[in-house]
C-alpha cells in the first residue's frame, strides 16, 4: 500500500497561496484591461498561468534581505515581494505613484526597499547584474541569496553563459531560475534551443542543476525552499529550470497565439492551471469549499478594482521631471 502523503503546509499557508495566485491573476487581467483602455502603453507582459512559480520562490526567501532580479514579466515578483499594488499599477500606467514615478513602466519595476532590482528589458542582459548582486553579498560576507530569473529565451544569450562561468568560478550565492514557459516570445523551445533540456546549462560550469515543475504551488514551494536553503548554507550557485506555461500571449500586443501554438496544445496545458490545482487541494484537504473560494475571488476582484481606481487617481508626471534622475547629482543637457 502506498504511504499517505505527508502534508507539511498548514491550511493557512495553502489559503495564502491561493489568495495570492488569484490576486496576481486578477491584477494581470486588470493590466490587460488597462492596456486595452489605452491607460497602459508600450510593452506589457502578464504572468497568467505562471503564478505558482513566483509564489514558490518568493515564499522561500527572506523578503527585503535577499536580492531578486528578473526580466520584463515582473509584476508578480513585485507584488509578492510586498511592493504596494497601487504603486505597481500606477507604474504600469505611467503615473507618479509608481516606484519609478512613471519612468520605468511595466517592464521596469524596481523596489529596492523590498529587494527587487528590476524589471529588465534586454533578454538575458540582467543576468550578470544578478551575478553582481550575489558578488556584493559574498564580498561583504553577508548571507543574502540572489534569485536571478530569466525566461527560456534568455538562456541562449552569451552573457548568461559568461555569468554562469563566473558564478561557478567564484562560488556566487546566486540561483539562476529559468522560467521555462516553452516559448521565447513567438519562437517555441524546440526552435530556439539545441538541447531543450535547459537545466543542463549549469552543468558545464560545475553548478548544481536540476529541472522542476512550476505549476503546483505546493511542490514549487518545497523545491524552492530546499534550493534557497542549500545556496544560503553552501554559498554556491544553483541552476534551476522550472517548467511552466504562459497562458496569455507574449505581451498585451500579442493577440495571435496561433502563430506558434495550436488550440489543442493550449487546451491540454490550460488543464495544468496552478489555480485550479490549488483549488482542488483546498477541497481535497477540506480547507475550503467552492462557495468560500468564490467569495474570496469576488473579494479579490473588488480589491483589484479599487487598486486600479487609486492608481488612476495618481497624476501623470509633470514635464520638468523628464530631466530628473538621469544623474544622482546633476542635470543633463537641457532642450532639443
Amino acid at each position, binding site marked *: 500500500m502506498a504511504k499517505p502523503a505527508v502534508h507539511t503546509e498548514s491550511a493557512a499557508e495553502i489559503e495564502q497561496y491561493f489568495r495570492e495566485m488569484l490576486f496576481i491573476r486578477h491584477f494581470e487581467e486588470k493590466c490587460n484591461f488597462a492596456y486595452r483602455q489605452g491607460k497602459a502603453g508600450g510593452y506589457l507582459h502578464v504572468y497568467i498561468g505562471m503564478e505558482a512559480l513566483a509564489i514558490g520562490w518568493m515564499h522561500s526567501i527572506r523578503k527585503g534581505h535577499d536580492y531578486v*532580479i528578473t526580466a520584463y514579466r515582473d509584476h508578480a515578483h513585485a507584488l509578492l515581494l510586498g511592493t504596494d499594488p497601487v504603486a505597481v499599477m500606477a507604474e504600469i500606467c505611467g503615473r507618479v505613484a509608481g516606484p519609478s514615478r512613471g519612468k520605468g513602466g511595466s517592464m521596469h519595476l524596481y523596489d529596492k526597499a523590498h529587494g527587487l532590482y528590476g524589471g529588465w528589458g534586454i533578454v538575458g542582459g540582467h543576468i550578470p547584474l544578478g551575478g553582481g548582486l550575489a558578488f556584493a553579498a559574498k564580498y561583504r560576507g553577508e548571507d543574502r541569496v540572489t534569485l536571478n530569473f530569466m525566461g527560456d529565451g534568455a538562456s541562449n544569450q552569451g552573457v548568461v553563459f559568461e555569468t554562469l562561468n563566473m558564478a561557478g568560478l567564484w562560488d556566487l550565492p546566486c540561483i539562476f531560475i529559468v522560467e521555462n514557459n516553452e516559448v521565447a516570445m513567438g519562437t517555441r523551445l524546440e526552435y530556439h534551443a539545441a538541447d531543450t533540456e535547459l537545466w543542463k546549462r549549469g552543468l558545464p560550469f560545475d553548478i548544481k542543476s536540476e529541472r522542476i515543475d512550476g505549476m503546483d504551488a505546493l511542490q514549487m514551494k518545497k523545491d524552492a525552499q530546499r534550493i534557497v536553503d542549500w545556496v544560503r548554507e553552501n554559498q554556491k550557485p544553483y541552476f534551476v529550470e522550472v517548467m511552466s506555461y504562459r497562458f496569455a500571449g507574449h505581451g498585451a500586443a500579442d493577440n495571435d497565439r496561433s502563430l506558434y501554438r495550436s488550440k489543442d496544445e493550449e487546451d491540454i496545458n490550460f488543464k495544468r492551471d496552478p489555480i485550479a490545482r490549488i483549488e482542488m487541494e483546498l477541497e481535497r484537504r477540506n480547507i475550503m469549499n467552492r462557495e468560500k473560494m468564490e467569495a474570496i475571488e469576488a473579494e479579490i476582484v473588488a480589491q483589484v478594482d479599487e487598486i486600479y481606481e487609486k492608481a488612476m487617481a495618481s497624476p501623470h508626471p509633470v514635464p520638468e521631471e523628464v530631466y530628473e534622475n538621469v544623474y544622482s547629482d546633476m542635470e543633463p543637457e537641457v532642450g532639443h
Partner: protein
Amino acid sequence: MAVMSYRDAVRQSIIDEMERDQEVFMMGEDIGRYKGTFRVSEGLLEKFGEKRVVDTPITECGFTGIAIGAAMAGLRPIVEMMTMSFSILALDQIINHAAKIHYMTGGQITVPMVVRGPSGAANQLSAQHSHSMEGWYAHVPGLKVVAPATADCASGLLKTAIRDNNPVIFVENPGLYATKAEVNEDKDYTIPFGKARVAKEGKDLSLIAYSRMVHVCMKAAEELESRGISAEVIDVRSLLPLDTETIFGSVRKTHRAVVVYEDWRSGAFGAEIHARINENCFDDLDAPVGRVGGLNVPMPYSRILELQCIPNEKDVLAAVEKLG
C-alpha cells in the same frame, strides 16, 4: 607634489581610494597575477588580495555586468578594460544597463562604478585595439566621461570618478602612460568634473582638445608662438559634463578656434564641441571653426600609415593656417 608618470598617478589614486574605502575594488583581465597589460595595476594584488583585485575571465560583457550589479548593491567597482576597444563587447551592459538604472528606477538605485582603460592608438596595435571610445560614451545620457591629459589630472579626476555615484568612463590614452608631471599627492586631491583646464593662455586663437591631443596642441602652440601667434590651449578634460563656459570664454576672447581629437574625424565628440561653438559663439568668430580629427579609416598596422592617421602638430598648424 612629486613628479610622477601618468601610469603611476592612476595606480596611486586607485591605491588611495582602496585604502580609504573598503567597498572599492577592482576587476578586469590580467590585472592581478599578470600585473595589468599596461602595468597600471602592478602590485595591487599583493597589497589588497584576491578579494579586492579580481582577475576575470575574458568576458567583458559578463564581468562588466557583474560590476554593475555589485554597484547596484552599493559596492564601488573599478573595471579595467585591457583596452577600451574591448569595451565594445560590454556596450549593452554600459549603455543599456548602467547608464539607465538611476533613471529607470526613478532614483532608487545608483551605479557608483568606474570603467577605465587605454583608449586610442598605442603603437602598431592595428585596427581592433586602437579605438578612441570616449566619444561613443559621451553620447549617452547617464554616463560621465573624462579624458585626462596629464598625470595630475589623471590623479585628481580618478578620485572624483571613484567617489562619484554615477557610472564614469575614464579613458587613458596609451601614449600618455609614460609621460611625467608634477602631481598633487594629497590623498583627498580631487578635480571636479565639468571643469576644463587652460593648459596655455593665449590671445589669437583657441586650440581645444582632450587627452593626448592636448600635448599635440601644446607643441603646435609653441611653433605658433615662434611665428608670433599666441594660441590658447584648452584641455577639455571632462567630456560629459562639458565645461562650455571655459570653451566659449576662450573663443570669445580669441575669436578663432580649432578643435583637435584623435577619434575618427566624422561624428566624433570633437564634432559636438565644434557644433556647440558654432551654435553659441557665431557672432564672436572671425573665421569658421576648424577641426582636426583622425583619418576615417580602420587603424592600419604599418607604423607609417598609423602615424598618418593620428593627428600631429603639423595637422594642427595646417588647420590654423586655413583660418586665415
